[in-house]
Each structure stands twice: as C-alpha cells, then as structure tokens.
C-alpha cells in the first residue's frame, strides 16, 4: 500500500492567491480539475503530446498533464476560466475562435486558447508560419487548423491595432 503524501502549496490561480493541500503524486491538470473545478483544462493524451491541457505558468505555456502539482507552489497559473471577466464576458481570443468557426468538437479549444493568449501577450506580430510553429504543440483532429490560425491572427491584429491606437 502506497502511503499518502500531502503537501500544502500556495500559488496564484487565475489572479487569486490560493492555498491547498495536494497529493504529491498529482499532476497539475488533476489538481486544477479535481480540486478547483477548472474543467477547461482537458485531459487528452496525458503524455504531453496533444496540448489540450495547456495552461500558463508564470506566463509561459506548459502541458499541465506532465507538470507535478507541487511544482506550482509559488507560481502564477492561468487557465481559460481566468480569461473571462467577472460578469461573464469572454475575452477577445475566445470571441475570435467563435467568429472564425475555429471550434468543432471543442476539446482542443481551451489548450489552443491558452497557447494563443501567450502569443498575444508577447505583443509581437507573428506571420502565419510563425503562428503554426508556435501552435505546433496543440493538436486538433477536427478543423484542419486553418480556422484556428485565422482566429489567432484576427485577435492578434485587433490587439496590435488597439495597442497602436493607444500609443
């Protein structure tokens, strides 16, 4: 019988500081889904290949299925739930996925949204080829990627235009 090992960790989750006692053998995706009910974090392959479980840790993309939950201690974790306003308004990148029909079954979508959100936050302008490379860690078996790239490009252009307008 394996003895239980728990560790108390404190981290920022979608902008709020949280403290929880986590089984040391748990993955970040398990902890986010089971302990915090953040079911946007999808468990697809569970070996770091499909990208459906992608979250941002300290602003960078990570496959939460191959990230030990205890490693989140002291870090800043963001999931799709954290992109939604308190009044329920969805973010520009989520809206762009709807507008461009970049969603079919929807299972890969949260992972793509988080990878895309990371790219948008860099404030860089990516070519379509660069977007393909940066999104290569996320797999979609429905759309053929075309509309996903369209959506990310659209949201990127809108954010860059907004930023240029402010300056």
């Amino acid at each position, binding site marked *: 019988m*394996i*003895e239980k*090992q728990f560790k108390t960790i404190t981290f920022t989750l979608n902008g709020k500081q949280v403290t929880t006692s986590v*089984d*040391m*053998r*748990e*993955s970040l995706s*398990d902890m986010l889904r089971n302990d915090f009910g953040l079911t946007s974090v999808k468990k697809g392959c*569970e*070996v*770091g*290949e499909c*990208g459906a479980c*992608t979250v941002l840790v300290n602003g*960078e*993309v*990570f*496959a939460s299925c*191959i*990230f*030990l939950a*205890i*490693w989140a*201690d002291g870090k800043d974790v963001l999931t799709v739930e954290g992109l939604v306003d308190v009044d329920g308004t969805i973010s520009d990148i989520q809206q762009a996925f709807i507008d461009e029909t970049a969603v079919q079954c929807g299972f890969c979508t949260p992972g793509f949204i988080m*990878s895309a959100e990371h790219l948008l936050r860099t404030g860089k302008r990516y070519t379509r080829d660069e977007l393909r*490379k*940066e*999104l*290569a*860690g*996320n*797999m979609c078996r429905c759309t053929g990627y075309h509309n996903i790239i369209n959506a990310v490009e659209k949201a990127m252009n809108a954010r860059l235009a907004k930023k240029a307008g402010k300056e």
Partner: protein
Amino acid sequence: MYDINKIYEANSVEDAVRLRMEEPQARIIAGGSDLLISIRAGDLAGCDLISIYTIDELRGVSLDDDGTIRIGSLTSFAAVTKNEIIQKYVRVLGEAADKVGGPQIRNIGTIGGNTCNGVTSADTASTLMAYDAIIELTGSEGKRLVPIEEFYLRAKRVDIHPDEIQTAILIRPESYRGYEGFYYKYAMRGAMDIATSGCSANVKLSEDKKTIVDARICYGVAGPIPMRTRSAEQAVKGLPVSKEIVEAFAAGALQDVNPRTSWRATKEFRLHIQGELARRCLTESINRAGGIWS
C-alpha cells in the same frame, strides 16, 4: 495521479546530493518530460523520485571569466534558445534546442535531462558533443568534470555516480571561438517528433576563409549514443573549401556511423540520410563561417 511511490523534494544542490545518498533507489526528476511519460506508460511505475526541478540556482546561462559558457542543467530548451550568450557564441545549440517537441515541451524539458537520459536522438546532445562540451557533476566530494563523450557510457546509461547530480554543461572558449555550426534534424514531422537522425557539424576556417582548419561532426541515431565521426573530421582538416572536400567528409562520416533498423526507419534509409546530412551540415557551416569556395 501518477503511479509514483514517493517523491522527495530537493531545494538545493546539497539537498539533492544528500537525498541521493539517503535514497539510492530513487530516480532524479528534472522537468519530467521523459520520466513522467515512462511512469504513465508503466515502465517506471511505482518508482521513487527526487525532484530537483525547483532548484533555481541550476537555471540560466553565464559566461565565466575565461570565456567558458556555463549552462545550468535545469535551463529549459526555450531558455537556451532565447539566451543572448548562446545566440552570440553557439547559436547552433539554441537552434537545436528549438527543434525539440513543441513549445510546451521546450518550456519544461531541460538541457541537463536531455543529456542525462542517455538517449541518442536527443536534439541538443549531438551539438554539445560536436562542441566538446564538459559535463559538471556535483556529489558529496565536490565537483567532477567529464567530457561529454565519456559521459555517455551506453544507451540510456551515463556516468553519474550514486551521490551525484548533473549541475552544469560547460563549453570551453577554445571549442567555440572561431567556429560556426549547423544542426539538421531529420524527422517525419516538423514538430512533436523524435529525430529519425540528426547531425550537428561545425567548422573553423583559416583567416582567408579558404581552408578548413578544423571540422567536427556528431550524429544522433547513428549508434546507441550520440556519435562523433573522426574519419570525416580527419578527412577534411587542412584542406581547401570545395565541393570535393564536402564529398570526402560525407564518405568519411559513413565509415564511422552504425545505425540500426528500428520502427522509425531502416538502417539503409538512415545511412542514406546520414550521408546527405553530413553534406548539408558541413556546407551550411562553411557558409555561415564565410567560407570562400574553390
């Protein structure tokens, strides 16, 4: 939940060394992009782990006073690629690190883990070996330096003593100053794939850029561990930059490599691409070094 028996967390290098001695059965986990997959597959189910992932002192790239490039073992592939010292002095290493997996894997995977798992297809290993990198290990008696070629013992087996962890990878100034290199990863897909074969070459040219002073080449998946091909290197030293020399280089390389047939590719196919990789990598290295072809 992973099928792990027990996890020990090391918060410093000394902590890790102590845990290594106290728990000899435990495996070291850095980023875990190999280990956690093996656990999930059942190969390492029920194992004990020593997590070194949160030892931040092992992250980052710096330049020592003597010009040695020092890469902390927990530096992620993405951090290697983005690093200015790497870009300035050994850009081919940053380019090789950028060929690993996809963005998520490049953030979690570490350059130390890429060498410690002893795998021949590791994208950074061939470039490190082509630059005569030195592996720094820290144990109960202090630090130990091992040339990377000696570090690899056999497939999946490297020279780490039971009380040690790998703490850095060093590249000496004489190994990179004046050299330009190129890495080619041959795989079935552009991302999220393991190399069918990979090749990293680098050259040092004479001042007039017409003669090859030194050339080094290392393959991934040409044998059980990353493999330097000395016949190729010897075949071109001191000779003029020319198409014939590139051919001699490729022919030399094929004398040394010994790929096998696996489910990814046959021996014959690997030999075919390995000859071509030698040509392309040497040619591109020469072009990058500003070579003047005769």
